[in-house]
């Protein structure tokens, strides 16, 4: 449960102690460990982490798109439904009208052999049971809503005839077509150049507000999350290490990892002799050591960090953190000289 929005109504989406194991060859590998957070109706929550943190798997678990052989435990509740238990018709309906996913690489996620028009209308016709003409009209309106103006021409084209940015807008149009209550956006702008990124984000936010949809926004970009989301959840090695209001997180991170993420991004206003980076490499859940998963890379780590597994605790009424030293280090994490970066890179490498 997010610490900042204590609402008396039940949240739209609640992820409770979600753990996911993937089958790789002969073994099962943990990628998510007891992840919990929730999203209210209309709210935007950011899920931030590097590769291997498990953010993609979280979103796939919510839309039930995990790879074959994956095992889940915990609960995902959507407006009273137990998502992990859904089967058959109920599952289809959940996917068709309740949640919709926007994928990162639009080009890979659209069928190159079918037209854009088919891509947009197939769901409307099959799920919404409306006729072809009406579906095409709606598709045209949707394309215009996402800023594609020669919609009639575009409908007849194939994906390879559109640029990446246009395709991503089409992907967004397709996702919002059924007016889902929750959008799952998996790094929707990562593959785009910066200018296009800004345009697409603007369109996404506008449609979200217009249709009153909640959004789970995945990114590795803390600053983008700060601009777009209400709350931010930070994942590391398959666990939640921090949750906080998005804007505050930037100035007042509660976990050394978050602070490192904030500092690693070059600030145009500052001079630096060296770009700070976090030594070592991001860990996945199954590679994480005992104790705190971030300890090997954390300069502020102490013995107790390596020995016992830290719990996620609320810090005041601002957020939660999985650092045993969070209260103690509060407010100091961003000061230079106390960066959580280890001086010795070799020490940090696993």
């Amino acid at each position, binding site marked *: 449960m997010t610490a900042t929005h204590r609402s008396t109504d039940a949240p739209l989406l609640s992820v409770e102690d979600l753990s996911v194991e993937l089958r790789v060859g002969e073994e099962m590998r943990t990628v998510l460990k007891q992840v919990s957070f929730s999203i209210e109706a209309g709210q935007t929550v950011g899920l931030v982490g590097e590769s291997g943190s498990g953010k993609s798997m979280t979103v796939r678990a919510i*839309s039930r*798109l995990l790879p074959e052989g994956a095992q889940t435990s915990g609960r995902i509740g959507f407006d009273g439904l137990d998502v992990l238990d859904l089967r058959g018709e109920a599952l*289809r*309906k*959940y*996917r*068709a*009208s309740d949640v*919709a*996913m926007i*994928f990162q*690489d639009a080009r*890979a*996620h*659209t*069928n*190159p*052999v*079918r037209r854009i028009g088919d891509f947009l209308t*197939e*769901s409307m016709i*099959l*799920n919404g049971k409306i006729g072809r003409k009406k579906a095409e009209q709606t598709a045209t309106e949707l394309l215009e809503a996402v800023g594609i103006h020669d919609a009639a021409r575009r409908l007849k084209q*194939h994906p*390879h*005839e*559109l*640029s990446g940015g246009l395709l991503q807008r089409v*992907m967004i149009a*397709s996702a919002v077509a*059924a007016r889902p209550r929750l959008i799952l956006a998996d790094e929707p702008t990562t593959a785009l150049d910066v200018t296009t990124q800004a345009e697409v984000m603007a369109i996404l936010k506008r449609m979200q507000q217009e249709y009153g949809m909640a959004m789970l926004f995945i990114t590795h970009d803390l600053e983008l999350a700060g601009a777009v989301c209400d709350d931010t959840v930070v994942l590391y090695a398959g666990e939640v290490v921090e949750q906080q209001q998005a804007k505050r997180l930037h100035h007042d991170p509660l976990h050394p990892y978050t602070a490192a993420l904030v500092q690693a991004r070059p600030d145009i206003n500052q001079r630096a002799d060296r770009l700070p980076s976090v030594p070592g490499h991001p860990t996945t859940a199954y590679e994480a050591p005992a104790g705190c998963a971030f300890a090997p890379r954390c300069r502020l780590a102490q013995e107790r960090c390596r020995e016992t597994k830290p719990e996620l605790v609320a810090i005041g009424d601002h957020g939660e953190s999985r650092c045993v030293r969070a209260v103690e280090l509060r407010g100091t994490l961003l000061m230079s000289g106390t960066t959580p970066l280890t001086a010795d890179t070799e020490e940090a490498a696993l």
Partner: protein
Amino acid sequence: MAPTGAFLARRVGGLLGTMFVASFVVFGALYLAPGSPLSFLTQGRSVTPEAIAQLEAQYHLDQPFFMQYLIWLGGVFKGDLGSSIIFGDSVSNLLSQRIGNTALLLLVAAVLVLLVGLFAGLKPGVFSESVMVAATAAMAVPGFVAAVVLMLVFAVQLGWFPSYGMGDGGFDSIWHLTLPAVALAITSIAFVARLTQNAIRSEMRADHVQTAISRGLPYRFIVQRHVIRNAAMPVLTAAGLTVAGLIAGSVIIEQIFQLGGLGQFLIDSVQKKDFPVVQAICLIYVATFIVLNTLIDIAYTLLDPRVSLGKKAS
């Protein structure tokens, strides 16, 4: 989505170009043989002066090499493939009596490959594992081995099928062609079945299928319109190529079952040193092969909009 005219023209141009080169090779092979063309053509026989004169006239041996080729090529276009040294008859006549048998064999084998191969590949579930094991084993069995085994079991031991000949037409011919067609098709069936299975499996895991699933589309629709439709392209291309490959295998099969087609005639003519016939049959096989490959190429572009349109992203 019709391919552009320029694209088609290029393909057909390529076809013609390859045909020219291939026909040149078939023609020029005569000069590769040891000795002079004349001595090669008459080898192992006692020949009358009239026969020699006839050969010289047929091959225009007095003309320069390239002229000979052009004259020969001109003749080919008019349907004149020369005269057989053994039979004396026009080669075209001799071939036209036999080409029907070959065509029928290839037709039956092709139908088997496409029907059984595609069907076996599409059936998911329990069948798939055993089908794949059987397919891998079948692909190691050469056509002639399959023919020999089939003949042994079904013709000699069980007597269900005849072991040679073409029969009397209609169903009798189909009955006679059963063993040969199966022997010819076995390896290709296995190949097509595996290919189809793999294509379907890999398409099921494709990203765009994930999108379709995430939109809550019905499973059946996804399989039909997304998976099969997309897998069809490489599968049909490969299936077409294997059918073209049936041509090569048919030569030996015809010989084994004495089917009296072009393949058997080719082998006979080599043994009897009837070179004009050898040349003509080689030319027909190669030309058919080239045309088939080009047609498959074009068919592929009709199916895949990325290739045919060739427009850039805008």
